[in-house]
Structures are given as structure tokens and as C-alpha cells.
């Protein structure tokens, strides 16, 4: 895991610690909670956890909820394999994250804030704890935040186990010591969250951006990236590229540009497709890379999503059906098992995919794949379930011929005469 050097002109607002520590927090206290939330709405700040919900609106809803006490939770439980953007962020800019978390807590009126973080990130946990300890010693956090008389305790909570903990309602249950299963929303965590109380759950990248916005202003933030979703995102490039690591990318940058920033294809290879969004992401074929912007809307149009920020470059040696079936099976195995379409349906999707890989797919399997994918997505409880069909669907959309290669081999080869 390393940070890649970014091209000139790409802002670095997440991975750079604030120039003046706690200036943003001071500004937020001076402005008050409602105004802070409004500043974020004005800046067009959208959550970086994948949902793309307006951060300011979420805080406002939490603040306006009747029940108390209120809680604020930072989500640093990234669970997609081979993606370490949160970890790098915490190690580079723990101060910004904690500052953002403190701003969030004061805005919604919470006296307790938690950072749910993977227990394996021991360096990040140590850093976070040292920032919190020194902030408490300096009077930034604790009984009276920066002398404002507001009380705030920040805790780092290491979590371990299911990959589903990254989902926000699951994270809340994990923090409460319960089995990691999502809850039906609505009600959203802003109404019923941690221990059933109003809770604002934000990704750590969101919080780091909050700190930057309150220092540099909403207008400066809106200048960066895609106007519909301004700011930068952390992208982990890996696979068949010259160099791999984490890039901070302005939203709206095309996939081809991101690929170029990572040095382009590895020597002697050509890129066939990018897997965008981790194991439940979508395949984007080479011919669409230049025209596809890295933004929620842009990726949705081609069947992918930002997700965890993973971006896997695939060269000609990769069999798309095999990879898609394997990813689907991984997602099916990681499912929490709460809903029927997820527990059984995603497994059945993986089985259909595997039949294509083995050349055993029947004539109805393609239509079944589409029918089941639609039913699983439409009745989904959480994003994991909704997005699990993506690799198979986009694979089928852009690389359909590969899905039938094995079938052709089977029928022309050793098991000719086998029919289903």
C-alpha cells in the first residue's frame, strides 16, 4: 500500500493534514451546528461511503430528531479485499478525520463519538489514539471542547469479523456488540441508530473533507471535480498497471486518466477492462474508459459504482466469467444471511456463473441470470445484496462471448452428446 504521486492540478485535500490544527473545529463552533450543516449542503458535500447522500442533510436530520442522547460514528471499517484507502487516510490524516468527527458531533448535538475501525489497522489505531489523547490534554476534546463548554468524548473501537460490518446499520450493531446484520431502512440511523438513538454515520473520508471545507470554504470545494458531486475521492489502483497504490482523484476524472496516473498498463500488456468498485463492482471495458467519468452518475450509467474505491485493471489474460463467478461467490459467502434473496439468491447467481465457467450452462441460464439479478436487487435490504449481481451483469453486458466459450468447448470436445 502506497500513495501514488498524482498529476499536477489534482487537489490533495484528504491526504494532507490541516495546516492549522483545530482551526476548522473552532470555525464550526463559532458558526453553530445549523450553519455548519448548511455550509456542507452549500458545498455539495456528498458522503464518500458509497451512498452519496448529502452529508449536511444527514446531520440536520440527526440534529432535528427528538430522541436523545445522540451519537456520531465514523466508519473506518473497509472490508473489500485489496482496498486500503481508509487505512492510508487514517495514517496520513488522522487529525483531519478526528477534527471532522468532532465537528459532526457538535453539529448534531452528540456528546459521544466513535470511530469503528478494523482491528488489523494497528498503526492507524495507535495514531488515532495518540491524536485523541493529545487533543484531550490540550482541552480540544473532553469536558469543554475548545472552551465552548460543550462536552465530547471520542473513542476508537477496533472491530473484527464479517466484511458486512462496513455497511452502516451493520456497523451500528457491531458497535453495540450484536450480530452484524443490517436493519431495514427507513427508519434511517439519523432517527434510530446506535442503541436505537439518533446517530450520524459518516465515512472517514467524508469527515476529512468536512475539515477541509470548514477551513477553506464551500466555494473553494465546489471548484474541485464534478459539480454534481464536488471534491476528491480516494481510489486504489491495482492489477495490471505499471504502478499500484492509492490516488486522490477529483470526482469526474475519466477512468482513462486515472489509469494513466497509475502509469498506464503494465509493460507488455493491454488493458481489457477495469473492475470498478471492488468485489461487487462492475466491469468497464477498455473502449469506455475515456468516456466514463469517475462519479456516482457516470459509473452507474455503465453498471459500476464507486463502492470502496477499488479499481482493478484486467489484461487479456483474465477470463471475465471466471472472475465474475468468483467475485459473486465471495459476496455470497460474505453475506450475513438475513434476507432470503441474499442468502440463497446470491449463491444461486454464483452457481449460474460457475455453470458458464464450466461450460455447463443450459439454454435458459442467461435469462435466469438476468431475472434473478433483477429480483435480488429489487428486493434488496442493503447495498451488498443490491450490488452483488454487478460483476456477472456487466460481464454479460460487455463480454458475453466469453461466457459461451466454455460451452462451445464442451459441446465440441470430450462430452459431446451431453444435453441438458
Amino acid at each position: 500500500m502506497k500513495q501514488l504521486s498524482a498529476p499536477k492540478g489534482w487537489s490533495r485535500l484528504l491526504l494532507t493534514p490541516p495546516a492549522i490544527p483545530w482551526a476548522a473545529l473552532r470555525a464550526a463552533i463559532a458558526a453553530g451546528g445549523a450553519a455548519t450543516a448548511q455550509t456542507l449542503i452549500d458545498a455539495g458535500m456528498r458522503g464518500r461511503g458509497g451512498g452519496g447522500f448529502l452529508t449536511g442533510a444527514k446531520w440536520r436530520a440527526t440534529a432535528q430528531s427528538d430522541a436523545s442522547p445522540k451519537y456520531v460514528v465514523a466508519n473506518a471499517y473497509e472490508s473489500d479485499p485489496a482496498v486500503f484507502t481508509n487505512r492510508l487516510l487514517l495514517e496520513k490524516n488522522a487529525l483531519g478525520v478526528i477534527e471532522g468527527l468532532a465537528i459532526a458531533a457538535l453539529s448534531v448535538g452528540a456528546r459521544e463519538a466513535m470511530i469503528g475501525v478494523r482491528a488489523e489497522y494497528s498503526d492507524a489505531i495507535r495514531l488515532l489514539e495518540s491524536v485523541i489523547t493529545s487533543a484531550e490534554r490540550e482541552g480540544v476534546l473532553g469536558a469543554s471542547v475548545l472552551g465552548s463548554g460543550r462536552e465530547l468524548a471520542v473513542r476508537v473501537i477496533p472491530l473484527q469479523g464479517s466484511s458486512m460490518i462496513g455497511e452502516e446499520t451493520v456497523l451500528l450493531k457491531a458497535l453495540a456488540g450484536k450480530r452484524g446484520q443490517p436493519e431495514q431502512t427507513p427508519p434511517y440511523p439519523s432517527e434510530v441508530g446506535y442503541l436505537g438513538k439518533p446517530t450520524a454515520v459518516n465515512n472517514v473520508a467524508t469527515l476529512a473533507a468536512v475539515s477541509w471545507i470548514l477551513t477553506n470554504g464551500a466555494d473553494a470545494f465546489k471548484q474541485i471535480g464534478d459539480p454534481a458531486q464536488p471534491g476528491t475521492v480516494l481510489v486504489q489502483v491495482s492489477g495490471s498497471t505499471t504502478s499500484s497504490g492509492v490516488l486522490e482523484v477529483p470526482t469526474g476524472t475519466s477512468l482513462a486518466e486515472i489509469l494513466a496516473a497509475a502509469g498506464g498498463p503494465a509493460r507488455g500488456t493491454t488493458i481489457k477492462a477495469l473492475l470498478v468498485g471492488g468485489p461487487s463492482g462492475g466491469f468497464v471495458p477498455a473502449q469506455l474508459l475515456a468516456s466514463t467519468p469517475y462519479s456516482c452518475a457516470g459509473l452507474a450509467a455503465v453498471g459500476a459504482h464507486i463502492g470502496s474505491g477499488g479499481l482493478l485493471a484486467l489484461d487479456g489474460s483474465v477470463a471475465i466469467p471466471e472472475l465474475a463467478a468468483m467475485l459473486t461467490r465471495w459476496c455470497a459467502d460474505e453475506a450475513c444471511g438475513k434476507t432470503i434473496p441474499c442468502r440463497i439468491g446470491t449463491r444461486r447467481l454464483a452457481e449460474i456463473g460457475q455453470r458458464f465457467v464450466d461450460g455447463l450452462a443450459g439454454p435458459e441460464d442467461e435469462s435466469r441470470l438476468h431475472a434473478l439479478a433483477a429480483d435480488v436487487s429489487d428486493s434488496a435490504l442493503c447495498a451488498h445484496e443490491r450490488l452483488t449481481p454487478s460483476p456477472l451483469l456487466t460481464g454479460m453486458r460487455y463480454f458475453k462471448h466469453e461466457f459461451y466459450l466454455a460451452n462451445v468447448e464442451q459441446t465440441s470436445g470430450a462430452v459431446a452428446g451431453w444435453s441438458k
Partner: protein
Amino acid sequence: MAGLMERPASGVIAADATAVQTTPESQALEQMLSTRSPQRPQRTPTFYVEIDGKQLEAFEGQTILEVCRANGIEVPTLCYDPKLPGFGACRMCVVDVDGCDSPQISCSAKAEPAAVIATQTDRLREIRRTNLELIFSDHNAYCLPPCQNKCPSHIDIPGFLKANAESQFRESARIFKRTIPFPSILGRVCPAPCEDHCRRDEVDEAIAIRDSHRYAGDQVLKSMWDEGIDPPLPFELQPKTGKRVAVVGSGPAGASAAYYLLVAGHDVTIFEKDPEPGGMLRYGIPQYRLPKIEVLDGEYQSITRLGGRFECGKMLGRDFTTADLKAQGYDAVIVAIGCYDTNDLGIPGEDAEGVIDGLDYLHTAALGLEYPNHEGSRVVVVGGGYTSMDCSRTSIRLGAKEVTLVYRRDMKDMPAADEVHEMIEEGGRAIFQAGPIRVIVDEKNRVKGLEFIRMQLGAPDASGRRRPEPAPGTEFIIECDRILKAIGQGPDMTWASVGADGIATTKNGRLKADAVTFQTGRDGVFGCGDVRNGATTVVASVADGRRCAYAADAYLQGLDLGEIRTRQTLAEPQPEFLSIVPFTGEMKEPRRRMIALDADERKHDYIQYEIPYSKSEAMAESTRCLQCTCEAIGFCDLRRLGIEYGTTLKTLEKDHLNGAGFRSITENRWTGANHDYVRDDSHAFILREPSRCIDCGRCANVCAEVVGAACYDFMRTGFDTLVTTPLDMSLNESPCVSCGRCAETCPTGALMPKPRILTKFEVDESRCILCGICVDVCPYDALRSGFDFELAHTDRSEPMIDLIALAKIERTSEATFIRGESNWENTVAGRRHDPARALPVLPSNLRAK
């Protein structure tokens, strides 16, 4: 609850009352007025929502599901428990809300003012159907036992076997007659597809299901012949409707249709072309398999005793038309004329003298006439069904010198495979995988022989059997004098040309009639049995006749025939809660076989060749039944929804008559890996069958949130997730308080109240150290210390003690005290047995010598 907690204790009120000196009446009033109600406010703000086009009042805070339930709108759920907030695991309660992109989960989504909601769109039904299919694809269990599922008529097999085991043979026959009116006939001629799927086969051998109902049916016939007792009726006889129904054909399908129409209160006349009723049962099946007078006539009396009339010697198309029947005032006509046209071999020389239609041959034999010159002839029978077997065995009985059966497929593919060995015992021979290609004739066009070609087996066809293909160069000739054709039959449809407007035939030359409503193209004319399906088994025809009767009954009542599908499904009998034998730990106990007469003896005779069961044999055989029925049947939400959404086994079988389609409950579009869990019957009251669990989480939520014990939760992840006890421990070791709420809330049969099983205990005296603990703790004084420092124990079946004398003694124990029969003071005395009181307890023969 807060109000309840704050209600002042009565003592406090009394103190207050003394202070202000009020009357008792005003005290009570004061208490009623000052005590806050524990309920939530009676009126919360209300508004209107539109659900399925209806304007409905909803309270603020109500979920969409609650509004639907309150107004009688059915939204399916599996994981919802009214005691708890919505859980959202089953995804069955999806509804469409205007303005939302994706379906909403109605058990947790709140009703919003002026929302427009739809609960039954095609898309929602598709999602629910997929969900149900996904559940079934991992539902390694069954509702009906496999035997009942495989029976074309779905007889309640565990039900009648249980009645048999209890020697309730009349009740057993009654249960049988709910789906098939003729237990004795089917007890002789049914190919018993049920027995091929009997789970007892996994223990030792399949139950003799057919022989068991044969015995029960025979008892009913016996009491009818000997004592004139009417056969039992399956259902209450309905009052006369005044409607008249004509049934054309008195074979199994027609007779079955007539029977159920008579029970439904209609007036039924049955037309038969032959001189006696019975159709194929009388003229196609030989006497040695089905005795005509004792059994066939006896069984058909259940029709005449209900007022059914037979009009024999009247043939459809020759003597009357369907139009004539309508003109004679029949409100409905059921055509069940069967298949009588034997298929041709389609080979050269088929018109030669000596090539005989197998059915004609059997018909002649059944009439008691002899085929000229049959004795001493050499006969070849072509075909593999029951007709071919009847032809072969009848030929042997008529004195043929040499009988050869030739079938083009393998023996295991032969429909009548179970009779082959009996035919061979009687002196016939069988050749498999050979097909006829040419009849060899002499100069007078008489049969001299039949040339065959060997068949090799190719790819499987629609019936799942491998298709035979000729192997060139393997021709051979069998010399013979007679060739009996028995390669299947088709119906004679010439009647459809006159006075039968609207009647159509299928491309196979059969009567075209709907598979569910049995309606032909002509109003009020129904078709069932072989004329609709082609030649099938007796049991399939009887089943067809029953379903057709239900359809005709609905038609006569003026009901919507579109609803018949549901009615028929519901009319299928539901097995009751059965518990005669536990499933596991069965002793090996082989099937009781009927003893057949010696082959040399039976081959000259038409008498029945099997010696029937004795009463004790019939009971013992039925006791072997494992009673595989799911205990939850009739209460199972999964099954109910499966029927409603068309995902249960029956509707999934596209073409069950031809053996195609899905074969078990786990087979559907999504069939794949599935789980087979081990049953936990360690708990005294709650039976856990995890294979039936659909992981809805209701038990986990109720146990944790309502009871507080938290015995269950989701375990493992992904596809292997299962709602179970911590680490799959026995429920006994969990914090279970045996409240039974988990079994109560379970939507399937995964958690059930356990049936009680009598247990027998044994005492090993060689290991007894005479500690006396058992004596001290036994609440019923079943064990006592004897006079000589010994353990005295007894047995219910051979009483060492005089129980009547024992009952007369006034004794006191904890048990009698708890029952309120005495008081505790005497207990100590009661526990001591002084010899004077105990002596009379011994029976006279054991008293002091």
C-alpha cells in the same frame, strides 16, 4: 407499561381513604379515575392512504402492513410476527409505493398521508415467486410424504396406514375413499408408484402400501356381502341438487367421476357400451388379477347404493350423441370412454391372419369365450405395458405352448416390470431390446413367424428413458402362430363427428379437454381419463375422474371455473397430526409379502393367485410406516404461499404424466447446492427440524425480545446461515424455558411441539447399590423399599401387587398432596409402610405361604 408501574399499591389507597373518611364506593371510583391507563392514547391522528385503489384510514405511526392487515388486504409475510417490529428478512411483504424507485418493505415502511400503494402488481408477484422458489431450492424437506406425492391421486397414505395399524379398517377404507372410491380394486391392479418412493426403503424395505389398502377394502366388501353394511362414505352425503349428470363410460375414470358426483348430491346415469359395467377393469384386466364378481361388482355397488344407475349396451356415437344427452335434460356430460383402439405395429404383413389385437383377445377371454385353436399355439406378445403382461399370462392360462414377450426397451424401463418374474415363473419367456420389423406369412397369409431387430439404447427422451434405436445387422426371427399386439392404445373418436359440435381432438387423436377444468370445447361436456390422457394406469384414471367430478360439480353450482384450480388444491386431503412411530432408530423389519400360489398351479387357473393378509399381518405391516408427513401441514405458511404463488411441486411439474418436469420440492429454476441438517429431538417438548427452517428469524426474535431467553440466533454466514441454538447445541443445554413460543411462531415445521412417545425403562438390578435415591425421589411411589432391605419394583403388565387393593389404601404422598387430595401433615406417616397395611396388596397367590 409506565402507567401500570405507577399504579399505587392498595395499602396506600387505604391510608388515604382513612384520612379523608370516604366511602368504599368513592374509593373505588377514585382509584379508577386516578389510575392512568397503561394503553397508548385511544386516538392518534388519522389520515387516508390509497391501497389497491381503496381509500383506507390509517393511524400515524402504522406501518403499511398494519394498515393492510387492519383492512383485510392480504400481504404475504414469512418473517413478520405481530408481537414484534418488522424484521425485513423474508422480502415477501414488498409493496409498490408511488414515487419510490424500488419496492418498499411494508412491515417496516410507515404509511404516509395520501400515499398510493399497490400490493399485487405482476412485478411484486414475480419477486415473491422468486423468493419462494429460492426457499424451496434449499428446503430439503417435504410436506406430503414422498409416497403420497408420487401417487397420481395423492391418497393420504400415512393416514390410512395409521388406521390400519390400529385395526380401524373401515376408517382406513374411508380415508382411502376420499381420493379413490375403490380400495380393493386398486389393491389388486395398481402399479403402486408410491412404494417406489417409500422412505422405509432406506431402513429396510418399502411398506406394502397396496396390499395394505387391499386388506382394508376387502374388509369393507366382506361386511357388505356378509352383513349388508353399506361401504363408508368419504364425506358427508350432500343433499340432492336436482342436477342430472350423464357419465359416458363406466371404467375407472367414469366410475370415479360418478362416485364423487353422487356424493356431491347430483343425479348420475352411467352409459356403458358393453353388457356389464367396468370398462377396462372388466374386459381388459384378467380374472386372476381382479375377480369380477367378488371385487369389481362389490366395489361398483358403492355407486349403485348411492343411487347411480348404469345403462349398459349403449355406446356413444352408435346409440346416442352428446347433443342427445343434453336434449334429454342432462345438465352436464362427462366423457370417459377410455382407449380401445390398439396401435398398429406399422410393419409389413400386419394384416396377416393370426395378428391379433391384444385388447380384443383379452375381451374375448374375459367374456369366458375361447380363442379358437389357441391351445398348443406359439404366441408372441409385443409390448411392455400391463396389457402385454395380461396377454402373456392369459395366453399361458389358455394353454398356449410357447409364450414370448418382446419389448423394445430394457426391462427396467418397462411399465409392467414388476410382473415379469411372475410371468416367467408361469412358463413364459421375455426378450428385451428388440423390435418387430416384418411379419412372416405362409402362402395363405397366415402368420408363420415374426422378424425382429435388436435395439440399442440412445439418448434419453422426454420420459427420461433412453430411446431405442435399431442396430442394423442384428435381425432374428421367432417362429410363431399368433402375434398379440399390445403396444398401447388410442381413443376411438369417431363419435365426435356427429352431434358433438365444438368437440375437438388433439394432434395425438385424443379428446381435447382442459387439464384443470376438464372442459371440452362444448359447454357442459367434460372429458377425463384415458380418452384425454392416452392409455395410463388405473390409478391415474381414477384421479382424473375425481378431479373432473370436482370441476363438473363447480360447473353445476354455477361457480367460476377459473377458481377450480384453487378448489382442487384445497380439496386434496391434508394428513392429520400423526405420531405412531418415531422416525429414527427403526428396527429392521422386512416387509410382509403376500404368498403367491405355486406357478404350476396358478398357470392353469384364473383364480387370484395371491393369498391375502391375515388381520394381524395387515396391522403389523401398516405399523412399519414411518409416518413421514410433515407435522406442520395445514399450518405451514410456506406451503400456503407456495400454492398461492404456484411454486409447489404439483404446479411445477409441467408434464408429470410423462415423467418429465421437476422431480422434487428442491427442484426449480434455482436448483443448486442445498443443506441437509440433522433433526434435534433431544428436547422433551420441542422438536427441531432444521432442514425445514427458512431462516426467517422469528423464533430468534420472539425468544430474545418477548421471552428473554435468547436460545436462538443466526449462525454462520452466507448461504450456510442457519437460525439455530448457540454452536448448534442441543436445545436442552440452551437457556430454554420450554415456553413453546418458538414453535408457535415458526411459519413452517422447523420447530414443532413434540409428539409424546411412550418410553419403557429397565432396571439393571446387578448394578443397584441399594442407595434408595430412586425411592426417595419418585413422586408416584412407583418404587419402594422392601422389608428385607431390597428394592421392590413391579411391572404394569404383570402386576406383582393387587392394584385394586392398592387403590383402596389411604396413603399420602407429595403427589396426592399436590393434587389437593390430602394435607401435608400426614405425609411423613404415609411414606412409612408398615407391614400390616402393605400385606393385602399382594395377590392371593403370592401371599405368605
